[in-house]
Structure formats: C-alpha cells, structure tokens
C-alpha cells in the first residue's frame, strides 16, 4: 500500500470518492497527506530523540533514559507531555506578535521540506509531491527558517537571545551559500532538479552513487563532505551549535521560550536533522537504491534502504555531537566563507567541466525524465511548463 492509496482509502472512508468530486477530493487528499507527514515527523522525532539519548548516553558512559516504559522508550513522550503542560511564559518586554509567530516560522519550513522528499521509490507512491524543482524548493524553504530564528531572537527582548538570533542568522546564511553550490553538483550530474531524477541518475552499484562515484572523483566526494559539514551547521548540531550554545549564550535565540513553544523549536531542530539526512541520502547516497543491483530495492525494500541510509547519517551526526566541541563564531564564519565556499566552487566547476566534456549525462537524464513522466502511478502532474512561453510561443 502506498502513501497515495492510504490517502485515498482514508478519503473514501470520509465519504469523498476521488474520481467523482475533483476539487474537494484534492483538498481532502492534500490534508490527509499533510497529516500523514506530520505524523511521520512526530514519530520520527520521538524515535530520533530516544535513539539520540541512548547513543549519546553510551558515548558518555551513562545509561540514558531507563524507567519510563520498557527501556525508557516512553521518556521522550513523557518529556513532550511535560513541556505541553508547562506554563507558557511571555516576557513583559517581548514583542508578543512576533514572539508567538516565531516558533511557527521555524517549524513550518522544517515541516514543509518533507513534501518533496521521497521516502522510497516514488513509483510506489512514497512521496507527497515529487516537484520538478524539488532541490530548489528545499533550498528556498529551508532559507525561510532564518527569519523565524532572527524573529525569535529579536522578539524576546533579551540580549542573549538577540545575540543568539544574530549568530544563528549569520551562520545559516553563510552555510547556505556553499550548500547551494554543492546542491548543484548532483543536479548537474542528473540534469534535473527533481529529487527522484537525481536518485535515478545514480548507478546501481554503490560506487556509482554521487558520493563515491569514481568518474567524477574527487569532486563529488568533496561535495558530499562539504554538504555534510553544511548540514551540521544548518541544523545547529555540534560543532556548530553556537546559536544555542548553552555555555555562552545560555540557550541562544530560544532562551525566553518555555513550554509548548520551546517544544516546537525542539521539534523543528530534530525534524531538520532527519530532513537533512534524507536530503543527503537522495543527493549523494543513491536514495532508496540498494548498494548492489542483486539486492532487492523495489517497493517496500526501497523504504527500508532509504531509512537505513538516513539512520546511518543521523548516527553520524549524533556521534559527532558526542565527540566534538563547539567552535567559535568567527571560526565558523571562516570555515564557511574561506574553506567551504572555495571547495564548493571547485566542485561545481570541476563537475561542470567534466560533464560538458564527457558524453552528456544530461541527455540520458532527459530520456529518463521522459520515461518517468509517462509513469501512470505518479501522482504529480506537472502544470504547463512556463505558461507564458507556451501560450505566446506557439500558434
């Protein structure tokens, strides 16, 4: 059963038969999709936090949660409930509107990125909307987070949170630049901005995946590493957890937040961690593909492979968090602008040159795109390409 089918089944249960009632069905289906994604996000974050606590506990020679539920698996839930029950404090000097709006502005992008991420092979329908500009969508949506963080820092009327918000904004913007550059590498290789196309453009063997592929060595590997570092910075993970560096800025931009709003920030942070791992999986690690062609990777196997790779990346992030310490803000900036940006440029230039010299993979990709667009199961129907061109260019 696929995501689409689940949605349709629920819609049918609610009394909307999709084929007959088009407009309403669309809305209902979209809502159900949104709810499913939200459910996935919540569940994923709950599991992630539990795993995170256990693994960090293991690294730090302690036990982690133990008592709430079997092996402490309900601890996160208990904490979430605790946070929801807490008093919601708004500082007197705070800008109430912006203060209340900020958590939403941070959370929504973290939530919206899941729309384009295929959770497995899109042919089986494990994606909400496989947008044709998926990569661009990811970049632009995640760039909105900065505004939420800056607003949170400013609206709290607290100097620490202002400093934290400013730091965070500076960090996110700085790392978006090299990140955008290395995003271009898989796009160049696949000749498409669609995430599923990027995955399809990667080979069947694991050494043909973007991160390890030998024909573009070392540019793609460099791009992958750069992406990982940027991912750490974008999700505020150690060693780039300066925006909330508790030993310097107390808690950074969310120092004045409590209860539910704090929970939302927390949710967004961990949601982003999963999302960025998923994006890295699709862009560089062959998405839902098995490492060897003789291993099954269709249908629900694709789901399994995808989550396996995402988990590996998340584990890597947790491991780094348990090992490294925090760098200073100027060192963060230096790394971003003086090291990662040139590396990103080199990667893009190198891959671009190699692509233009070699027998064009773009052409192959185009053929694949054509094949994909004929796929009957694909939920996404592309709207008219650049309507202006079409209407005015023809006839």
């Amino acid at each position, binding site marked *: 059963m696929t995501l689409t089918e689940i949605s349709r089944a629920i819609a049918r249960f609610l009394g909307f038969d999709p084929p007959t009632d088009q407009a309403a069905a669309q809305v209902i289906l979209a809502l159900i999709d949104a709810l499913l994604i939200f459910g996935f996000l919540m569940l994923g974050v709950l599991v992630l936090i539990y795993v995170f606590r256990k693994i960090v506990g293991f690294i730090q020679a302690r036990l982690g949660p133990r008592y709430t539920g079997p092996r402490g698996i309900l601890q996160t839930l208990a904490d979430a409930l605790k946070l929801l029950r807490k008093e919601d404090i708004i500082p007197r000097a705070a800008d109430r509107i912006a203060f209340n709006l900020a958590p939403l502005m941070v959370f929504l992008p973290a939530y919206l990125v899941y729309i384009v991420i295929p959770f497995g092979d899109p042919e089986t329908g494990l994606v909400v909307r496989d947008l044709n500009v998926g990569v661009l969508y990811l970049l632009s949506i995640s760039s909105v987070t900065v505004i939420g963080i800056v607003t949170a820092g400013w609206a709290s009327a607290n100097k620490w949170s202002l400093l934290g918000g400013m730091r965070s904004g500076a960090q996110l913007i700085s790392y978006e630049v090299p990140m955008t550059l290395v995003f271009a590498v898989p796009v160049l290789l696949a000749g498409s901005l669609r995430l599923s196309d990027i995955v399809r453009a990667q080979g069947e063997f694991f050494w043909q995946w973007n991160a390890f592929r030998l024909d573009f060595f070392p540019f793609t590997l460099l791009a992958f590493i750069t992406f990982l570092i940027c991912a750490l910075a974008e999700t505020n993970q150690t060693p780039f957890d300066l925006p909330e560096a508790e030993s310097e800025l107390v808690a950074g931009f969310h120092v004045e937040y409590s209860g539910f709003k704090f929970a939302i920030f927390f949710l967004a942070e961990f949601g982003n961690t999963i999302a960025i791992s998923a994006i890295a999986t699709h862009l560089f690690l062959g998405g839902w593909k098995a490492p060897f062609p003789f291993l099954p990777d269709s249908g629900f196997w694709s789901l399994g492979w995808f989550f396996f790779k995402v988990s590996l990346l998340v584990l890597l992030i947790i491991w780094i968090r348990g090992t490294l310490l925090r760098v200073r803000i100027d060192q963060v900036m230096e790394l971003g602008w003086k090291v990662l940006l040139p590396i990103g440029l080199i990667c893009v230039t190198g891959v671009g040159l190699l692509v233009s010299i070699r027998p064009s993979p773009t052409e192959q990709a185009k053929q694949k795109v054509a094949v994909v667009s004929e796929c009957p199961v694909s939920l996404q129907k592309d*709207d008219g390409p650049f309507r202006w061109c079409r209407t005015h260019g023809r006839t």
Partner: protein
Amino acid sequence: MGEVIAFYILALIIVLGALAVVTGRNLFHCGLSLAAVLLAVAGLFILNGAEFLAWVQVLIYVGAVLVIILYAIMLSENITGERILLISQNRGVGFAAATLVFALIAFLGISLSGLLAGHTSSVKDPVLALLEGADSNVIVFGTLLLTRYILPFEFASVFLVIALIGALVIARTAE
C-alpha cells in the same frame, strides 16, 4: 475555480501586507509583513506555473534580502530603550506618487501584453520550437537563459561580481 480562489486569497495577503509595510509603526513588524507579501507573490508565480521563479523568489527575497533588512532593523534599533517608530510624514504626496506609478505600470502592462500577443503570433521562435516537447519549464528556462538571453544574463552576473568586489573594497578600507 480553485485557482481563482487561491488568487484572491494571495492578492488579499499582498494588498494587506503591503499596506501593513507602509503604515506599520513597528519597523520589525513591517519587515515581517514584507515577508508575507513576498511569499504571497511567490504563490502567484506558482499559480502561473512558474515554479522555478517562485522558489527563487523565496530563496533570494525572503531568505536573503529580507534577512538583511531584519538585521539592519535589529542592529540599529536599541532593544533596551525606546523603539524606533515609523511615521510617514508626506502621506498625501506618497499616495499620489504611488497611484501615478501604479497607473503607469498598469498602462504599460496592458499595452505591452497586447503588443506582444500581436507580435509573437506571427513569428515562430526557433528556440521555443526546439523545446516544444520538454516537460519541465526549468529546462526551458535554463535553455532560454543560456541561449537567447545570454547577454542580459551575463550582464547581470558581471554586475553582481562588480558589486561584490566593490563591497569587499569598501569593507577592506575600514581595516
């Protein structure tokens, strides 16, 4: 039907947001209203089938330009003391000028669209003809940018590089 409803909702957001930007008293709220306007404009682009443009709009205007604006507000406003209040002084003149500019743009838009429609209907564009079968407007867009509109495109990039170097030069003299 759905598109029409979406258009009116977006238009409402744009108009109200724009009004909030120019009449708001709290500078920071003005900035946030501007964000809403820009996002709604991106929504309009999507309605017109220009996804690429829409997300680039979000990426650049919301993710970069607006953040710079918010930074400027945050850094110049004294958070411990009184807040800076934005009071428009020449409302009448401003309104008149805005109306004039709006009328001009509307006139140009209407007349130009008619002109273009009449013009392009007779000429078959070779580039567009080549791309007839493509299914993603991104490819059309990219191809057009790097073939037909290569000169403006390169012009823009050279301009940006000049601006970048200029900013660096200004920043360096301070040291």
